[in-house]
């Protein structure tokens, strides 16, 4: 069946965003009844390519053929009309509506002008049955577990008569039994002749489910492979396949005493939050003057670990322990953590880091007002001096420190967050993806700053999705997988491939662990 004419053929696709060439000359075909895996590092062009195929991006170079006919989609609705549906990582469901209402959202069935609830529920039940799911179509989506919601999204796509289904990291928030479920459904679809494009980083999943795998790198096709005969090592080499950039300055500081020690930390969440992977057995140490990297795939639990250490993670009984300078601590709030010298740079500075419409000054001093004034009073002059001091030290480029932070570039915004955090005089610095959305120059400055801080005896724990960054900046890299720490590499010896393989669940030979 896999030799039949392709459902979709993409030829010579190229797309440029400003100065960044996201895709150049990519070819991809999807045949009926195949699961076609799409692999590549962050920024390799996977997302852009899929946004083009699903009609989300319309100005690009190249050809799309659907069932042999050249097509140019005007938008996602147009692509859906042609039988191409995408399942996003963030599930686009309305929580308060029922399964049936979600499946028919925006194209509700009507009978004599009134909503045909029963009709919608019957048709939804039929689609759910087709993929072997037993759920009451009248149930509100918010009552479903994440895995079940994922299946509802698939049902919705199928009810559109999708012939091509794009799944973007569909398993990142699923438990292993839910993954099995999803794969059963996927095999079912394959039998029905649906073509599936499957984006994932997990080699074991790709080996289980995919018929072909195409690897992208820097916006180009590296090649298309048979995932069943290909080793993880080969795939990883194909994905990385480039010299590691040397913008990094690894600190060669004397490593001092142990600052932070995490022993078999686990949180049994009282009220599970969907899409979270709370610590489930993590051990690591950070010594003074040391930069320790935190690697792991999407959903491995890096953010949740940092949040737990900062006292803002999931509520619930904790096992294992956290030691700060040898003393056990129980971080239960950001205030507690800050008082004990733990500071945190959150993942998304626009959502959790900054008050965007407030000034650079206000954002810089908000965490350290106690040291700027006394008895709850603040001197505007000292406040200004403190903010100017931080801006100068970190090289924040802004016309005036009274400018709102959202007039600054991403890199300068991140420096404002760093400046605020450093004003609290931390001993341990936790950073979550600090260079995301930051230009190359500011990245290098941030790396340099981290090295400097380590030189002053801080312990740094840096979570990142960028392997070159982890290998280049950190002294050691701890790898998380499914909420557990699974490997600890010395970056003097480790290669990117070793780290990636450990994160994906396959230990390569020669790795120190």
């Amino acid at each position, binding site marked *: 069946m896999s030799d039949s004419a392709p459902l979709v053929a993409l030829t010579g696709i190229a797309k440029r965003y400003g100065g960044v060439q996201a895709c150049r000359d990519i070819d991809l075909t999807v045949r009926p009844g195949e699961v076609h895996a799409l692999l590549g590092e962050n920024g390799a062009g996977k*997302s852009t390519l899929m946004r083009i195929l699903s009609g989300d991006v319309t100005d690009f170079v190249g050809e799309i053929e659907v069932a042999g006919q050249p097509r140019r989609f005007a938008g996602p609705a147009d692509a859906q009309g042609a039988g191409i549906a995408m399942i996003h*990582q*963030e599930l686009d469901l309305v929580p308060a509506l029922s399964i049936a209402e979600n499946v028919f959202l925006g194209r509700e069935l009507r009978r004599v002008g009134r909503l045909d609830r029963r009709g919608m529920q019957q048709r939804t039940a039929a689609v759910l049955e087709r993929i072997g799911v037993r759920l009451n179509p009248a149930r509100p989506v918010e009552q479903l577990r994440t895995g079940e919601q994922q299946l509802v999204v698939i049902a919705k796509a199928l009810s559109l008569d999708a012939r091509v289904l794009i799944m973007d990291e569909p398993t990142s928030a699923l438990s292993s039994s839910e993954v099995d479920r999803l794969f059963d459904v996927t095999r079912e679809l394959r039998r029905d002749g649906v073509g599936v494009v499957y984006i994932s980083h997990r080699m074991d999943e790709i080996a289980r489910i995919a018929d072909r795998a195409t690897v992208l790198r820097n916006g180009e096709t590296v090649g298309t492979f048979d995932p069943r005969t290909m080793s993880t090592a080969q795939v990883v080499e194909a994905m990385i396949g480039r010299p590691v950039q040397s913008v990094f300055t690894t600190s060669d500081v004397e490593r001092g005493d142990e600052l932070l020690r995490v022993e078999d930390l686990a949180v049994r969440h009282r009220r599970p939050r969907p899409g979270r992977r709370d610590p489930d057995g993590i051990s690591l140490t950070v010594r003074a003057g040391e930069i320790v990297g935190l690697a792991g795939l*999407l*959903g491995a639990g*890096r*953010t949740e670990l940092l949040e737990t250490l*900062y006292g*803002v993670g999931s509520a619930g009984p904790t096992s294992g322990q956290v030691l700060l300078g040898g003393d056990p601590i129980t971080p239960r709030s*950001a*205030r507690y*953590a*800050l008082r004990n010298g733990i500071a*945190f740079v*959150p*993942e*998304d500075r*626009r*959502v*959790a*880091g*900054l*008050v*965007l*419409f*407030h*000034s650079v000054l*206000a954002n810089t*001093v*908000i*965490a350290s*007002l*106690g040291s*700027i*004034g006394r008895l*709850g*009073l*603040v*001197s*505007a002059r000292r406040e200004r001096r403190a903010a100017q001091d931080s801006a100068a030290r970190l090289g924040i480029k802004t016309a005036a420190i009274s*400018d*709102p932070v*959202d*007039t600054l570039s*991403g890199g300068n915004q991140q420096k404002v967050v760093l400046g*605020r955090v450093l004003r*609290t005089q931390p001993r341990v610095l936790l950073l979550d*993806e600090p260079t*995301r*959305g930051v230009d190359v120059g500011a990245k290098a400055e941030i790396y340099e700053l981290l090295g400097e801080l380590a030189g002053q005896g801080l312990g740094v724990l840096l979570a990142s*999705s960028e392997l070159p960054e982890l290998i280049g900046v950190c002294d050691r890299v701890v790898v998380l997988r499914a909420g557990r720490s699974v490997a600890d590499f010395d970056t003097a010896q480790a290669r990117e491939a070793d780290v990636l393989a450990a994160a994906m669940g396959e230990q390569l030979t020669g790795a120190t662990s």
Partner: protein
Amino acid sequence: MTATLTPTPQREGARRRSPLAWLARFQSVLGLVVVFVGAIVFSPTPDGEIIFLSGENLTNIVRAVSEIGIIAVGMTLVILVGGIDLSVGSVLSLAAVGSAVLLVDNQLPLAAAMALVLLVGLVFGALQGAASTLLGIQAFIVTLAGLSIARGLARLWSGGQAVPIAYGSGPGEAPIAFSLLGERTFNGIVPIPALIFVAVAGGAIAFLRISAFSRHVYAIGGNEKAARLSGVPVTRVKITVFAVCGLLAALAGIVHAGQLNQGGPNDAIGYELDVIAAVVIGGTALSGGRGTVIGTVAGALLLGVLNNILGLNSVDENVQLVIKGLVIVAAAAVARFAPRT
């Protein structure tokens, strides 16, 4: 953990220097000036004298807005943290009733009665803040309930009737000092309530300028998550702000009782809307994190001048309501295009 950054265009930075932006920055003060000039133009002038500008009329305006203005200072804080307090009119009434009953029926000394009434307002506000933050219920709903509860308490406490206040030293009479609230000082020009309003507003402006607390207030309203991660004691600050708003509503209630010489359980119905209008006209964003007490003072005075000039011209009361509504929309429209500073 995909990048969910949606870079917004940076036009706000560019707009900052436009004349419109400059205008918007002082919108409430400018609005006040415009309305003031308009009032001079439209003032009735029997015997060639502009009645609007007479000293007595101007001080009357300040006296008339003093109750709304005092509460609006507290409401500004609540709205700055992203909240709202709908209970203030009822709390005012409760405090007015409380003042009358404690002074007249219970014969409490003036200071004790005032302290008790203020404490009632403070605790009522704090409880609302606690219910909102600790139970995770929206402030709108909690204070809507508070509006009902405080009104009910006021009627229960007064027996459903306005409690008249007579002055003297005999039984059933309140200390004469309380009647000062209806008086004027400085050669009988400046009403005492206006002085209290000015003191409250001035105190709040100064406090906001120099306190760490105010930085916390703005940060919470601007981005609560970022504030929490920065170690701001979000829950404590929010409860405090609601407590202060309740306290100021009670203070306004005392002023109210003193001016009218009675505690009316059915007074100040709908005041919360005038208070919120003053805050919004003053340029404070209902979404929080943005606004000033100075703006609120200007907003309250603007409403007062408007009411005054319409009254001087004997404009129909219902027409007055329509005009007031249009002014609120106009102020909000200007704020909509204001720079986000």
